[in-house]
Every structure is written in structure tokens, then in C-alpha cells.
């Protein structure tokens, strides 16, 4: 609620029904907090003249869950489930980003095979994330088919997650130091069949929208942003690249052996909804390329690093070996020895640069853990992007920016 309303009216409904609002040229309406078109809990108080938006004021924080405070009371391996709930459309990226941050702090040597396994999983997560975002843009332009069509493919990705960690949405995938087991035979079968069938299904879906006249008319020139403003507002990920800036964490600050792979960073021109959609579509194709390369050149070796202080020992060892039992208890009770230090590590998340700023004082929990949540930072650009547009354009701009409520509000 903004200030002028508070001073002159007793309640929002009184304001919305007032003579001034109804008879005047300028109307104030609420888009959200709960609105079927916003895909999450966001409130935007729009001032509109007819259907043109004049200004917008955002309210965030509806699902704030104090993750940064929670993290200060949790041992390091219990923080992974918190990261799931940031960008829940691509939680494996969040989990693995957190593991990599910890590995940077404890300076663990990670086997090449773990890197490649992580790349496969993170690119699958990126595909799943982009599939949802791009299909939702279809829904908001009136094409519900384009929403259901890719869900079959997304389901296959979720089945692959299940094969690795048993969970689907909030995955809690992997561990500090690697994975709990190697890829299972079922995983290999499912991944091979996914790589075989996905490009065809994706192509069919892509051709429904990519050159569709209605879709293009609806999305081109909608919610544009210039590269200068995009930089100033701290946009990252596909949104920034759609505006024409080729920044990608995977290339600029490579992690998890991304430097081994050959892939293209797609870049848009106008920074509008259509460009954002196109950049994501191309990124899906590039992700498939990366998975094929990583899966084809999978190095031999172990699926876990040699970090006994952090990686839970095998169950058979725990039952038969005194040292393993001690390590098991220390890790479960969160009594690992952690060096003091400050680490910033970032990964290319589904919607931008996802960073972890970790301060350790050597205690059992982080002294401070801050998440660089990409959509919290770039959502600030939204009012500028929709000013002068219509309300229905505001809706597709919001969905094309891939703002995830869980990540926005932490």
C-alpha cells in the first residue's frame, strides 16, 4: 500500500471504489498478490490510464522464510535442503552450487567424473527450468497446448532426478564431495532414450511457437530493455543475454569443468519477450549438446572425492569399522572441522548468476551465508520494462523474466 492511500483513505477498497478512481482518468489496480496470471505471489500496484500502465509499485516478501537466518543455525550439510527451495524449477543447480561453494572452502580435489556427472545434471535442470518458463509464456499468450506438450519431456527429466537422488522437485541432490552413488544402469537407459527422443519432441514444440504469427505479434516489442539498463539493473542469465550482453558464468568463471565443452551462448537483440523466449529455446539446444559431450566423454574414476570429514562413509563401513562410525557420527551431528574464511562462488542458474557468499569462522555452522538470488536483483527492472505497456503485456513480461517466488523472497 503506498503512502497517499494511507493518508486519504481508510481501506484499499474505499480507495479503489472512490469517485476519484472511478471517474478520474487514472485507475489504480492490484496485479496480485494472488492472481492466476502471476505464477507466484507477487503484488504489483499498477496505475493505469485506460489499459496503458503509467507506473507500478512492487511488493515482495510474501513467502519470506528467513533462509539466511536458518542457515546460521544449521551444520553445512543440512543447508542443501534450504537451497532447493530457492529456485525450485531447477533445484539441482542450487544444490550443486552449494556443494561447490563448500568444496572451495575446504579446498577439496574433485574427480573429473564428478564434474561431468554434475554438468549432466545441471544441464538437465536448465532444460527443465527453461521448458517451464517458455511454455508458460505460451499459456499467457493464450496457447495452453504449448504448456502441456513439453511437460512430458520435463517428466522424463524428473524421472532422471529420481534415479539419482530419489526426489523430484526439491531434490537435495549429491553431497559435499560428489554423489552418494554412481549413475545407475536405469539412469543410463533413461538418459540415452531422453537424448534420442528429446530433440524431436522439442523441435515439434518449438515449431508451434517460434514462427507463429500470433505468438510473434504478441511477444515482439513486449517488455523490452536496453543493454545499458539491463546492466544497470543487474540482469543476468537469459534475460541479460536477450538484451544483447553475452555474460555467462559458465564461460567467464568456469566451474565444474565447463571449460571442456563446446557450446554457444545465444544472444538476443531487442531484449523483449520474444528474444527472451528465443534465447531460452536456443539454450535448451545447447544444453543438449553439452549433455551429449559430457555423457560421451565421461571419464573413468570415482563418483566421490576423498573428503572423509564431509562425505558420509558407506553403510557397510559404518557397521564394521570404528573410524567410519566416528566419521558418520561427526558428520551427522554437524561436528566437522571447517576452515575459517570467506568464499564467493557462483553458478549459472536457470535464471541468472546464482551466488553463495559464505563466511565461516571455523564453527559448526556458517557465520553468515548470503545467497545472490538473481531474480531478487533483476525484478527491480520490471516497473521500467512495463511502463507504457498494457496490462496483458505486463503479465507476459513477468512470466518471460522467469521470476520465481521462492528465490525472490528467500
Amino acid at each position, binding site marked *: 500500500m503506498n503512502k497517499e492511500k494511507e493518508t486519504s483513505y481508510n481501506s484499499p477498497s474505499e480507495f479503489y471504489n472512490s469517485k476519484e478512481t472511478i471517474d478520474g482518468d487514472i485507475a489504480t489496480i492490484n496485479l496480485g498478490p494472488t492472481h492466476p496470471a502471476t505464477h507466484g505471489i507477487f503484488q504489483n500496484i499498477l496505475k493505469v490510464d485506460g489499459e496503458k500502465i503509467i507506473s507500478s509499485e512492487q511488493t515482495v*516478501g510474501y513467502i519470506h522464510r528467513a533462509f539466511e*537466518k536458518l542457515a546460521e543455525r544449521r551444520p553445512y550439510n543440512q543447508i542443501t535442503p534450504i537451497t532447493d527451495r530457492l529456485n525450485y524449477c531447477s533445484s539441482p543447480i542450487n544444490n550443486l552450487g552449494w556443494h561447490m561453494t563448500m568444496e572451495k572452502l575446504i579446498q577439496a580435489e574433485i574427480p573429473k567424473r564428478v564434474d561431468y556427472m554434475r554438468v549432466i545434471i545441471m544441464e538437465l535442470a536448465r532444460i527443465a527450468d527453461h521448458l517451464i518458463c517458455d511454455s508458460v509464456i505460451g499459456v499467457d499468450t493464450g496457447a495452453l497446448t504449448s504448456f502441456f506438450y513439453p511437460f512430458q519431456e520435463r517428466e522424463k527429466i524428473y524421472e532422471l532426478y529420481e534415479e539419482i537422488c530419489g526426489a523430484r522437485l526439491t531434490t537435495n541432490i549429491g553431497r559435499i564431495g560428489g554423489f552418494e552413488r554412481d549413475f545407475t544402469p536405469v539412469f543410463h537407459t533413461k538418459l540415452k532414450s531422453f537424448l534420442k527422443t528429446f530433440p524431436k519432441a522439442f523441435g515439434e514444440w518449438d515449431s508451434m511457437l517460434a514462427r507463429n504469427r500470433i505468438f510473434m505479434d504478441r511477444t515482439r516489442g513486449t517488455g523490452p530493455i536496453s543493454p545499458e539498463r539491463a*546492466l544497470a539493473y543487474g540482469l543476468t542469465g537469459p534475460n541479460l543475454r536477450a538484451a544483447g550482453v553475452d*555474460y555467462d558464468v559458465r564461460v567467464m568463471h568456469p566451474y565444474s569443468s565447463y571449460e571442456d565443452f563446446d557450446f554457444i551462448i545465444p544472444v538476443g537483440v531487442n531484449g523483449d519477450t520474444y528474444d527472451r523466449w528465443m534465447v531460452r529455446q536456443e539454450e535448451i539446444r545447447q544444453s543438449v549438446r553439452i549433455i551429449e559431450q559430457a555423457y560421451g566423454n565421461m571419464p573413468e574414476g570415482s563418483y566421490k572425492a576423498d573428503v572423509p570429514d564431509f562425505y558420509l562413509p558407506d553403510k557397510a563401513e559404518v557397521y564394521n569399522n570404528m573410524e567410519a562410525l566416528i566419521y558418520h557420527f561427526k558428520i551427522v551431528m554437524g561436528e566437522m572441522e571447517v576452515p575459517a574464511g570467506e568464499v*564467493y562462488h557462483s553458478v549459472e542458474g536457470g535464471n541468472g548468476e546464482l551466488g553463495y557468499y559464505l563466511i565461516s569462522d571455523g564453527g559448526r555452522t556458517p557465520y553468515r551465508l548470503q545467497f545472490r538470488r538473481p531474480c531478487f536483483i533483476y525484478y527491480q527492472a520490471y516497473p521500467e520494462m512495463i511502463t507504457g505497456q498494457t496490462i496483458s503485456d505486463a503479465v507476459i513480461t513477468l512470466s518471460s523474466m522467469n521470476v520465481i517466488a521462492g528465490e525472490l523472497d528467500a
Partner: protein
Amino acid sequence: MLNNEALLAQLEGLFTSNILSSEISFDMLTVEVPATSIHEIIAQLQKDENLSFGFLTLIGAVHYPDSTDREFAVVYHLDSWKNNVRLRLKVFLPLSNPSVDSITDLFPCANWMERESYDFFGVIFNNHPDLRRILNEDSMDYFPLRKEYALEDGTREDKDDRFFGRV
């Protein structure tokens, strides 16, 4: 391309007396600067053609209740895409006057990050266009990420700390 050592040498040349301390750890250079000159330093880093720190990655605050007159740290992460190097700037503020100049005029994206630091730590950013709480409700009368606030709700009586090994 610049490495951290070369970057530190350049910064020492530019801001001689303003560099209070510096450290290179975990592939990143950390430089502590006086709170009064942070705006000027970031403006210069942004404008400088060789350094061109044109991207603000993150602003966050940290609470150190035990260090007198340095209770709060505000940490800035900057990224120079031209040189592909990151830089961490730190300023320390006393509890009696936790205020520092806002850099929203240099980087519009600093707006919400500074509001978040205000919301959770009570750090005041001078000249900020709209310094209000952002994630917590406006009527809240404390700053929840300060160390003196326990995670659990202090008003609850059904939770006894002795039973959880925390006395």
C-alpha cells in the same frame, strides 16, 4: 586479463591512503576501505577505463557483535567483465552510527540490496531513494539477522533450550 595481485597493485596506486587492509583468499581480492569514501571509490572503479568494474554482483551486511566500533560490515562484490576479475570491498561501521552512503545512483540494482541490508541489519544508507523494509513487514521493530536475535521465537514457552543442548 588481470590477476588479483596486479589488481591490488593498481588499486594501491589509485587509492593509496584509502586502502586500510587487503587480502587475497579463495581466488578473490578483499580490500577494506573507509566507510566515508566508499561511494567515491566505487564511482571511480566504475568509471576507470582500465578497471571498468561495471557490474555490481552483490551487497550484503555482516554483524560482528564482539568487535567494538566495527560491529557491522557492508560487503560489496564487484565484477569487471573486461578484465574478468572480481573484487570484494568491505567497510566497517560502528553500532552507534551504522550508516554509509548509498550507491543506488551508480548502480540502480543496489536499491533493493541496500533495502535488504537495512531490513535485516539496520544499516542506514544515506541518500537512498526509498529506504524501507523489503522482505519483512513494515511494523517489525527489530533487525532479525543481527546476532542477538535467536532463531526461535522468544515468546514461546513450550520450547526449553535445555532439552535441545543449548543453554
